[in-house]
């Protein structure tokens, strides 16, 4: 895990975002145990208190659950995974659209461009 964080955004949120991405990518499976607070802190090069806060945040969102004496686990609830996938899709698309609009592309141009990219280039990149 690369340990680069934006210095002007809360690290606990950046780390939570990173873990959510790992879940969506399948790098972290449903039900899988997360590293201990200390190990995660070492891996990400952050304060253990920050990791603790990240885990609490994710727990509040029902994305992970902590089992007493055993550690913190990714939820086994498929619906949560689906919800994160949807949320991430929204975020990525809205950022993309915003950037395109700022550069002056119309919505039709964006749609057409995306379509042709996916049929021509995107397909071969998979």
């Amino acid at each position, binding site marked *: 895990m690369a*340990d680069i*964080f*934006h*210095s*002007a*955004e*809360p*690290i*606990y*949120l950046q780390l939570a975002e990173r873990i959510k991405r790992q879940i969506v990518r399948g790098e972290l499976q449903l039900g899988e145990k997360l590293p201990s607070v*200390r190990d995660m*802190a*070492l891996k990400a*090069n*952050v*304060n*253990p*208190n*920050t990791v603790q*806060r990240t885990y609490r945040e994710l727990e509040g969102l029902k994305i992970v659950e902590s089992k007493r004496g055993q550690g913190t686990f990714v939820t086994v609830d498929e619906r949560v995974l689906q919800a994160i996938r949807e949320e991430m899709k929204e975020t990525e698309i809205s950022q993309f659209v915003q950037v395109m609009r700022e550069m002056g592309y119309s919505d039709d141009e964006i749609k057409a461009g995306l379509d042709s990219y996916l049929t021509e280039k995107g397909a071969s990149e998979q």
Partner: protein
Amino acid sequence: MILFQQVTKIYRQKVALDEVNLKLSRGKIIGLVGENGSGKSTMLKLIAGLAYPTRGEVLVNGSKANRRVASTVSYLSELDEYYRFYNVKQMIKFYASQFPDFDLKKAYEILTFMKLDPESKLKELSKGNRGRLKIVLSLARNAPIILMDEPLSGLDPMVRQSIVKGLISFIDLEKQLVLITTHEIREVENILDEVIAIKDGTIIGHHNVEQLREEQKLGIVDWLTTIYE
């Protein structure tokens, strides 16, 4: 845990600290930043009981800081002086004999983590490895307060990185408080809970770092730039 009440420290004519009020609690890694001569080391020495305030009080766990405070405070000075004829193992043994809270097992764990050879002679250690050894000696104590004066100063990036990792691995944040002075802010910004800025003997800012990022959208360096101007 640490309390400064209207603390002024004057060395001869020079005011090193000027009516400082400060409260620090356990479970945190706190960075103390400021230019050379701003009063950082003086604050550490007052907490360690190695210097006394001219006016005001420094309380550590409720009692006035004096020489006896050394039993609860692990103080890592910025100086780089050791008994050159010792080897690493003997140095550790010496520390264990001086401090009842020195944890030999932990010392060897940190030593291994830092990839130091217990048989090396101190006079033959590189500057980087002397820096690592200082971390071993200071973190191996189960002291509630750990003070580190410029632990990263003058060391190469690899060594600085291993020291930061050592801090993450071996500090017990349930029980300990770490106060660290440094100029290498980028290196430590991700492990600090709080940051204190000091200028000309006065504290000009004290923040929870994540709160700074969340509420003001500022990293530590941005924040320092705004308050120093």
